């Protein structure tokens, strides 16, 4: 069913990582990404692996869930792997057939890239597993707030994201309902040619759009009734608070990054 698609894939359990300040989690994840792509040596991959492993244990997210997050990128992995494997030239040649050639350089780079992408996805999905989408938007708003001085509508953007996120489950539920209702009237969405199938979407899309517009209108009215007038002077129900655990986590991340930099310089 559509409802099983969890957006942002938030996995609500109680753990140290779940309790962390979302702003710190975002900064740490960004540092992790930079570290992964900056390091040209295998040490950065080891450090990345350590990071993912530690974060996974601390957040109590089952390894199965993390592996599941890798599933959608399997085609990309295969594509990148093959591309690097065949197109890069250098070092010893292992295999050659007409213009197809596999070399040492190719094998090395393709393995390196694969591990790197896997770690990238695993690390970032840990962020979304442990942080609800709404808190994430709050944190982004808070991190971007210096841009307000440059007249960037940060609050408005965050509010738009929050509303969009808030209504995705609602609209999915609505789509489910409409689909069920049209199926009850014998609508057939699973068979037929491409054109027939596109045609079969009309009975779903029209009611869905109508309801989305209706909801938007009602929401706008409700916000106005409660005197919403933008971000100026607005206080929050959930205030983002940072504490000891956030500082420690950030410090550890910086140390890890520093170690990777040092090792890179020494080993090169």
């Amino acid at each position, binding site marked *: 069913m559509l*409802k*099983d698609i969890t957006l942002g894939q938030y*996995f*609500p*359990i109680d753990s140290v990582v779940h309790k962390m300040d979302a702003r710190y989690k975002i900064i740490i994840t960004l540092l992790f990404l930079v570290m992964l792509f900056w390091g040209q040596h295998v040490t950065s991959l080891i450090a990345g692996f350590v990071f993912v492993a530690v974060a996974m244990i601390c957040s109590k997210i089952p390894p199965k869930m993390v592996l599941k997050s890798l599933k959608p990128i399997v085609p990309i992995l295969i594509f990148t792997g093959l591309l690097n494997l065949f197109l890069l030239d250098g070092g010893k040649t292992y295999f050659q057939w007409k213009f197809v050639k596999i070399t040492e350089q190719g094998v090395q780079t393709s393995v390196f890239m694969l591990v790197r992408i896997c770690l990238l996805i695993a690390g970032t999905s840990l962020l979304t597993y442990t942080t609800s989408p709404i808190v994430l938007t709050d944190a982004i708003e808070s991190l971007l707030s210096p841009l307000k001085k440059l007249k960037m509508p940060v609050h408005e953007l965050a509010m738009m994201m929050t509303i969009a996120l808030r209504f995705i489950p609602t609209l999915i539920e609505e789509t489910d*309902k*409409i689909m*069920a*209702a*049209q*199926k*009850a*009237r*014998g*609508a*057939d969405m699973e068979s037929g040619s491409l054109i027939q199938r596109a045609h079969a979407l*009309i*009975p779903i899309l*029209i*009611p869905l759009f*109508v*309801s989305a517009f209706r909801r938007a209108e009602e929401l706008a009215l409700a916000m106005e009734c409660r005197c919403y007038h933008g971000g100026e002077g607005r206080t929050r129900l959930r205030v983002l608070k940072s504490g000891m655990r956030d500082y420690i986590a950030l410090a550890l991340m910086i140390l890890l990054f520093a170690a990777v930099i040092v090792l890179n310089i020494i080993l090169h």
Partner: protein
Amino acid sequence: MPILEAKNLTYTYSIGSPFEKTAVDHINLQIEQGEFVGIIGHTGSGKSTLMQMMNGLLKPTEGTVLLDGKDIWEKNADRRAVRFQVGLVFQYPEYQLFEETVYKDIAFGPKNMGLDEKEIDRRVRETAEAVGLREELLEKAPYALSGGQKRRVAIAGVMAMEPRVLILDEPTAGLDPKGRTKILTQLSAYQKRTGCTVMLVSHSMEDVAKYVSRLLVLSHAKVVCFDTPSNVFARGDELETMGLALPQITRVFRLLRERGITFPDEVYTVKYGAELLRARLEGRDPQC
């Protein structure tokens, strides 16, 4: 043989996730041909989930649904055909209207059945009349109609498939008392005329008491009882602990009894209650 039967029927949402919830828990039911069954239960008692399993929209986690004794989830079973035989009108069905005209929207179901133009035309006109839609409304856009009219168009859309079992999930929700009575009376008349089986989901006792022959009470995903309205209402105190209110008229007569004014049996329609009182005042026997 019952027309529709549920055996050990169970449905669990989001199995294996932290949101797992059993909405229907090992339910057994037998619905006979031509019955008018009411289904009541508070919000979240599993009414809607149960109804969606009855016409094969949801696949049971456990157990079976039998239509004329045949399992609808049997291999190679045609579930689309099942849906034409067990018509389901969802809650707030007016939100599913999509065609340019009322006529086309009602015709959507019959068209999917592959009927010819003449038959479709007959069915659209007949059902529109059955739900009290005037002829000239048929060519209007559904979005131009009032809420109550839209609701009727949606109900007609399912009726036009002429299902042998018609299931309605809270068809009167959000309507004013007049609109409510009108829809229910028309439904009752339709059921008598066609002899089809009707299952009416509601959380208002008032609504169902008047029309149904049997009443199914659900609470916390399980069947509490499935009996005639008078037998069900006899367990009034039990119903009230489940958050279901008895019809107001029944409560009035219970209070009268507490004050020593007794009547032979339980009252659950205003008409019957009024007749009892009038007869008592005039010192004669009630005539119904």
